[in-house]
């Protein structure tokens, strides 16, 4: 008769026990700017993230010290990756894979290499790092799925890396004091406008003990915004304006340069 009660008590104790470390540390973060404006002179930006680890009075600090992993995920985008193949002497985009809702930007910043922070299983479960991020593919019905999809995934990651849009930096987070850290988030000029999710994880002895999500927004303003919205909402007028601009520019040049 006592067995169910004991089980419940045991489960309750387990829950409390698991929850304890999370309650022991609080992770506080702050971004240097939450809204990044794209101006005519925009050429990329570096946003700085500051964070502090607040410990409950009397809580012991972990033996291995704290580790921080910052993940920044940009607006999602469906992207096609083509592979060229030789057909009749010509290089043709032959096979392709569609990556559904892949992050347009991805930064994984840590204070030391990911595999030193925690084990491979945890990384995979948390989808932490470029090797573990989920990139769902829509399989091309013609190509079938017999090909190792890894090739396309690898190519996708390396192309994104070339443009500075995907990056993993094991020295991206710096501890300025035992419980105080900073990380700079490099945003290249090619970033898309939209919301960027910033997720900061605090690790102790290989386990996540606290997590703080926040976000930053990249947006266009002023003239940039005006051009973009007019092009989107008043296409015909915008086109007529562009065509008139072309004709006026041409006419103006012929007047200015008239010599005969």
């Amino acid at each position: 008769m006592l067995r169910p009660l004991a089980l419940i008590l045991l489960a309750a104790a387990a829950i409390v026990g698991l929850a304890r470390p999370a309650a022991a540390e609080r992770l506080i973060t702050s971004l240097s700017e939450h809204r990044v404006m794209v101006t005519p002179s925009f050429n990329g930006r570096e946003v700085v993230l500051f964070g502090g680890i607040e410990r409950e009075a009397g809580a012991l600090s972990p033996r291995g010290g704290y580790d921080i992993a910052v993940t920044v995920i940009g607006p999602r985008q469906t992207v096609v990756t083509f592979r060229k193949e030789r057909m009749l002497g010509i290089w043709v985009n032959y096979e392709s894979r569609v990556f559904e809702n892949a992050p347009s930007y991805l930064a994984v910043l840590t204070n030391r290499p990911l595999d030193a922070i925690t084990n491979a299983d945890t990384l995979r479960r948390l989808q932490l790092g470029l090797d573990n991020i989920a990139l769902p593919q829509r399989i091309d019905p013609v190509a079938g799925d017999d090909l190792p999809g890894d090739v396309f995934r690898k190519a996708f990651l390396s192309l994104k890396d070339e443009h500075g849009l995907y990056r993993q930096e094991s020295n991206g987070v710096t501890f300025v004091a035992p419980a105080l850290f900073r990380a700079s988030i490099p945003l290249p000029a090619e970033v898309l406008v939209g919301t960027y999710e910033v997720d900061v994880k605090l690790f102790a002895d290989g386990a996540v003990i606290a997590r703080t999500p926040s976000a930053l927004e990249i947006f266009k303003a002023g003239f940039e915004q005006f051009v973009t919205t007019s092009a989107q909402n008043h296409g015909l007028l915008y086109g007529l304006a562009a065509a008139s601009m072309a004709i006026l520019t041409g006419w103006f040049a012929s007047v200015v340069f008239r010599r005969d």
Partner: protein
Amino acid sequence: MQIYLPIADLPVNIFLILGMGLAVGFISGMFGIGGGFLMTPLLIFLGVSPAVSVATVSSHIAASSCSGAISYWRRRTIDIPLAGLLLAGGIAGTASGVWLFTTLRALGQLDITIGISYVLLLGIVGGLMVVESVRAIMRARQGKPVELRRPGSHTWIHGLPFKLRFKRSGIYVSAVPVLGIGYIIGFVGAVMGIGGGFLLVPMLIYILRVPTATVIGTSMVLTLVTMASATVMHAATNHLVDAVLALFLMVGGVIGAQFGARAGQRISGERLRLLLGLLVLAVGIRFGLDLTLPPENFFTLRPLEGG
């Protein structure tokens, strides 16, 4: 100095864009072509997406051909009735070209079709122009009189009905080949995303025997009208015209076109055709190499439109 392009979504160097506009404008003014077949690949190389490049280049071509057309108008070297008739054929051609473009895109075979058409078209047209102009220059060197009009060389084209007289060009031809040429230019232009001036000029010279004097001005008027309407259509349907990029290209382009038009007047017709032929051939070879040489990277990324 960098400037951020709002539609293309990337920063570029202002002076690089102005310089590109200037160089392509000079060529377009000199030969009476739009220069789209040069500018579009250049922009794509800079990192602008192909769709935005094609749409934006159309407004740049409209500006340089407008400035060029006004210069030729003052010199009275434009054949308005001929341009009007070509335009009528051109509109029909554009409509069928857009239909084929959409169909090929749905089939996923657009890129390769564009690549092969560039190689074939530029290769054949460029090659023919080089051979012909070299022959003409050789004849002139040997002291033989330059045959401006060859009365005996009437082809079957001159036997077609509905003959019209084009006074300014001094030709008497059927309306059928004029409409046909307009149609082909409109069709090819829509499929390949180019103005088609480099095709139109030789066609007018070799098929209709329009004298070199009026051919460039007339071709410019046609380019101006088609490209201005293409700008409006691209902006209204795809929202892909980058006005900031277009403005910088235009400013460079119109200045270049003025100097180009003057330089063109000083060079003899044969030499002009030889230079244009070499240029067209070079771009064709470049596209050919892209298709046949092993690529640096076998993989490319492209965002799915509307995805």
